[in-house]
C-alpha cells in the first residue's frame, strides 16, 4: 500500500518538476512566471477565505434565524404537554428514539462483532458488507415505506410508536454496526493475544476485552444515531403517524392514551413541522412549527456536541482510571 503511494507521489512530483522545468526555460520568463504564480496563489487564498466566510455565515445565520423565530414563538401554552403544546412531540421524539435504540444497539453491535471478528474474508462477509452499505444509503422514505408495508399493512395495525421505532432502527443499524466494527478493529492486537494466552475462548475475548475497549466509541455512535433519529421524518410519516392522542396524567403503559404505550400513534417534532407546513390549518400553526424547529435543532446540536464530549471523556477515563 505504502509502496504504491510512494510511487504515485514520485510521479506527481515528477509532473510538478516537469512544470517547473518548462517555466525555467528562459530566465526572463521564469521571473514573470514566478511573480504570476505568486499572484495567483494570493488570489486563490483570498477566494478561499471569502468562500469559507460566506459558507459559515450562511450556516450561522440559518441557525440564528431558527432559534430567533423559536424564541419569538415560545409561550407557556405552546411549551406545554396539552393541546397544541409541542411538549407532546418532544416527549414522542425522545421516547421513539429511545425505543428504536433498544433494537438498534443489540442488532448493530452484534452485526459489527460478526463483521470484525467472525466473518473472515469469504463470500458471505462480502455480501453482508454490501448489504450494510446499501442499507445505510437507502433514502429514508424507502425505509419508511417498507416499514409501512411490513409493520402496518401486513399486520393490519394502526400507525404506532413501535412501527416507527422499528423502521428508524433499520436506518440506524448500519451506523452502529460500522462503528462497532471500526472500534473493534482498532483495538490493539496485543489485547487479543493476551486474553487468548490466558485461556480465554475467542468469544470470551471478544466480549470481555475487545468489546469493553470499544465501548467509548460505540457510545459515541449511539448518541450520533440518536441525534439522527430526532430529525428523521420521512421514515415516520407512514409508520408512527402524524397525530397523537395522549394524556400525560396516565402512565399505565397498557392504556391507549398513555404516553408510554408503544402501540399508540405519535407524531415527533420533525413530523409535526412537516404536517403543519403542508396541511396546517390552525391559526398559530406558524408559531408551533417555529418553536418545534428551534427545539429540534437544539436537541440535535446538544446531542452532536454531547457525543464528542462524552466520547473524549470516556476515552480519558479508560486510560487513567476513575
Amino acid at each position, binding site marked *: 500500500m505504502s509502496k504504491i503511494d510512494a510511487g504515485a507521489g514520485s510521479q506527481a512530483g515528477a509532473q510538478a518538476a516537469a512544470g517547473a522545468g518548462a517555466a525555467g526555460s528562459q530566465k526572463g520568463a521564469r521571473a514573470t512566471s514566478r511573480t504570476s504564480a505568486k499572484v495567483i496563489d494570493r488570489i486563490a487564498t483570498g477566494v478561499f477565505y471569502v468562500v469559507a466566510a460566506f459558507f459559515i455565515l450562511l450556516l450561522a445565520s440559518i441557525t440564528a434565524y431558527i432559534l430567533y423565530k423559536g424564541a419569538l414563538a415560545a409561550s407557556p401554552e405552546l411549551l406545554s404537554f396539552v393541546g397544541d403544546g409541542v411538549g407532546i412531540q418532544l416527549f414522542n421524539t425522545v421516547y421513539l428514539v429511545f425505543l428504536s435504540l433498544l433494537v438498534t444497539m443489540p442488532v448493530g453491535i452484534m452485526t459489527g462483532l460478526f463483521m470484525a471478528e467472525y466473518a473472515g474474508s469469504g463470500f458471505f462477509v462480502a455480501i453482508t458488507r454490501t448489504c450494510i452499505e446499501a442499507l445505510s444509503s437507502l433514502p429514508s422514505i424507502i425505509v419508511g415505506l417498507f416499514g409501512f408495508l411490513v409493520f402496518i399493512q401486513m399486520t393490519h395495525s394502526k400507525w404506532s410508536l413501535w412501527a416507527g421505532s422499528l423502521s428508524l432502527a433499520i436506518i440506524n443499524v448500519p451506523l452502529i454496526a460500522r462503528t462497532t466494527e471500526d472500534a473493534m478493529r482498532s483495538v490493539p492486537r496485543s489485547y487479543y493475544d493476551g*486474553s487468548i494466552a*490466558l*485461556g*480465554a475462548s475467542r468469544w*470470551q475475548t471478544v466480549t470481555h*476485552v475487545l468489546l469493553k*475497549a470499544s465501548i467509548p466509541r460505540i457510545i459515541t455512535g449511539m448518541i450520533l444515531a440518536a441525534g439522527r433519529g430526532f430529525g428523521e421524518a420521512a421514515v415516520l410519516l407512514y409508520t408512527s403517524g402524524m397525530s397523537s392522542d395522549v394524556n400525560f396524567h396516565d402512565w399505565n403503559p397498557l392504556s391507549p392514551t398513555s404516553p408510554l404505550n408503544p402501540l399508540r400513534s405519535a407524531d415527533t417534532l420533525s413530523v409535526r413541522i412537516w404536517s403543519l407546513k403542508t396541511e396546517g390549518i390552525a391559526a398559530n400553526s406558524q408559531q408551533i412549527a417555529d418553536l418545534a424547529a428551534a427545539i429540534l435543532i437544539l436537541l440535535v446540536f446538544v446531542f452532536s456536541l454531547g457525543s464528542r464530549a462524552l466520547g473524549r471523556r470516556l476515552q480519558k477515563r479508560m486510560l*487513567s*482510571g*476513575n
Partner: protein
Amino acid sequence: METETCVQTSALNLYYSDFQALRSVSLAIPRKHITALIGPSGCGKSSFLKVLNRMTDLIDHCRVEGQVLLADEDIYAAAVDPIMLRKRVGMVFQKPNPFPMSIYDNIAYGPRLHGQKGKHQLDEIVEKSLAAAALWEETKDRLKKSALSLSGGQQQRLSIARALAVEPELLLMDEPTSALDPISTGKIEELVFELKRSYTIIIVTHNMQQAVRISDMTGFFLLGELVEFANTNNMFTAPQDKRTEDYITGRFG
C-alpha cells in the same frame, strides 16, 4: 543436573504455508528452571514459544508436526482443549499488554474466565499474584485505577501477575524486557529469578547478557534449527558448535 522434565519436544517441525520455521527441534525443558532461548531474529525461537501454548492455532496456514509433551501429555492430541492448555501454560509478551480495565480486573480476568467468582477468593488471588510479581506494594492502594495508568515496567509486571493468577505450570516469556528501560529490565530479571522457585520459565531473549544473568539452561536457534542446548555456563564459556561460538562472540546476528 538431575531434574524432572517439564516440556519435551521431539522432531518438531513448524510450517507457515510453505516456509519451514522450525526444523526437527527436540529438547527437554527442566522443571523449575529458567531456560533461555537465543538466536538472531527470525531464527524460530518465538515460534517455538507459540507452539508450546498452541497460539499457533490462531495463525492461518500454520502446521505443526512432531510431538510436544507437557508433563508427559501430548498437547497436540485430539482430546486436548487448547483453552485448558493455555491455562496451564502462561505467556508474557514483548510489549506489556494490560487490558484497558482496572488493575484488579486485569488480574481477576483469568480466574473469572475459569469459573472463579467469589469476591473473597478473587481478592486473595489478586493480592497473591501481584505480590508474586513484586507489584503489590506499589498498587495496593489503587487497584481500581486503570492498568494503563501504570508505567511501562509496572505494566509488564502486571502482565506477569496476570499470567500467574491462573496458576500455570509453565511460563513463556517472549522478550519481556525488550520494550523497557534498564531499571525496569533489572526489576523484571530479579522477579523472573525469584519465580523459578515455583515455576518453570522459558524466556526468549535478544540480549545474551540477560541469558547469562538469569538462565540455567540456554538453547541457541539458527534458521529454525536448535543448534545447541546446554547448561548456560557451559554454553557461554565452551560452546560445542562453531556457529554458537560465532554468534555469542558477536561475529553475526
